[in-house]
């Protein structure tokens, strides 16, 4: 895995979109297994943590040094995000394990129902601009990330992070209001 992923990442760092897409895809599949093994207590959080980690890999890709084995780099980032996750959720999740699972089932049903009824615009208005504008332009108006970046004056990276974090914040709000 090391050699193949390494080549893809290095090509990606050079600006090769196809290689970078393949790199993230294969890395995602690998990391999903990594987190599934470690998050046995909370399977519902695997995708969340995986996305956090992929976002971190993307945002910090300039710290990859070709003299470091790729697996060491990836594992260090994944472990950091994993520990971060445990710090944030550990205590609370340990206390309310079963409840959490149940409420998650409820939350997803209620979310579906609410999605239809709540006015997206109202929800969007409640977000800060760094989240609102990327979602508005990329997800609702269908512009490309580059176009949204040019329109808002944000960097492309900031637009991507904004879409991801903004959608997460929206979901949290919908869940919170129910």
């Amino acid at each position, binding site marked *: 895995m090391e050699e193949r992923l390494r080549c893809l990442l290095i090509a*990606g760092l050079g600006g090769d979109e196809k290689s970078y897409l393949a790199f993230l895809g294969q890395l995602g599949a690998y990391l999903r297994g990594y987190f599934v093994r470690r998050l046995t207590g909370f399977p519902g959080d695997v995708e969340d943590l995986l996305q956090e980690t992929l976002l971190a890999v*993307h945002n*910090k890709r*300039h710290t990859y*040094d070709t003299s470091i084995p790729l697996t060491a780099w990836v594992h*260090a980032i994944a472990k950091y995000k994993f520990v971060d996750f445990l710090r944030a959720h550990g205590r609370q999740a340990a206390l309310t394990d079963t409840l959490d699972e149940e409420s998650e089932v409820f939350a997803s049903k209620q979310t579906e129902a609410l999605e239809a009824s709540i006015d997206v615009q109202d929800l969007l208005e409640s977000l800060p601009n760094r989240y609102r504008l990327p979602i508005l332009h990329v997800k609702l108006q269908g512009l490309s990330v580059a176009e949204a970046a040019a329109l808002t004056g944000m960097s492309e990276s900031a637009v991507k992070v904004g879409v991801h974090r903004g959608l*997460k914040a929206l979901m949290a709000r919908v869940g919170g209001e129910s």
Partner: protein
Amino acid sequence: MKTDELIVMLATGVSAVDRNETRRRFALATGLGGLLALILMLTTLGLRTDLAAALATPMFWAKLAFAVVPAVVGLIAVFRLGRPGARVGWAFIVLAVPVLAMWALGVAQLVAAPAENRAALLFGRTWLLCPLLIGLLATPVFILVLSALKDLAPTRPTLTGAMAGIASGAVGATVYCLHCPEMAAPFVSVWYLLGMLIPAVVGAACGRRVLRW
């Protein structure tokens, strides 16, 4: 958002990354910090009046090396700690060399000196001020290095903070060498070291909070 969608979004239109950029920025931050420390020393403390004569003594250079070695090693180690997965075990060995050498020299000087002179060798005339001034001169590099680390990805924040403290403390000590008139190895081996350790403790204490990403 689905993970696949996230991946596609992240990869779409991805731009080439200049990997030397981080190195340049880090070098700039440390250079600027060192310069600020030098200006701070020159304007508030001033060069030691006998600097020209001191340059001819081996002890001046031993003292300078005691500060320069951890400054260089520490800065390299901090930069490496900013990159996930990089190893820094070697740095601790190299950092220990000047400390052990100065301790050995200090003990030798204390043993060789008559008993009534030993306190003077250890405390000099500025022992109280020395660690504090070194800590103060470390501040510009400390702050600039920590902010340069924001751009990197330290996965061991406590260690990284401590190493940033050692490095900036050592830069502060290097600059302080040009002011400080103390020339006894026992003095340097204790108070200079303490001056470098103050920012190291601060860095270790605040690393996890300050270096979060």
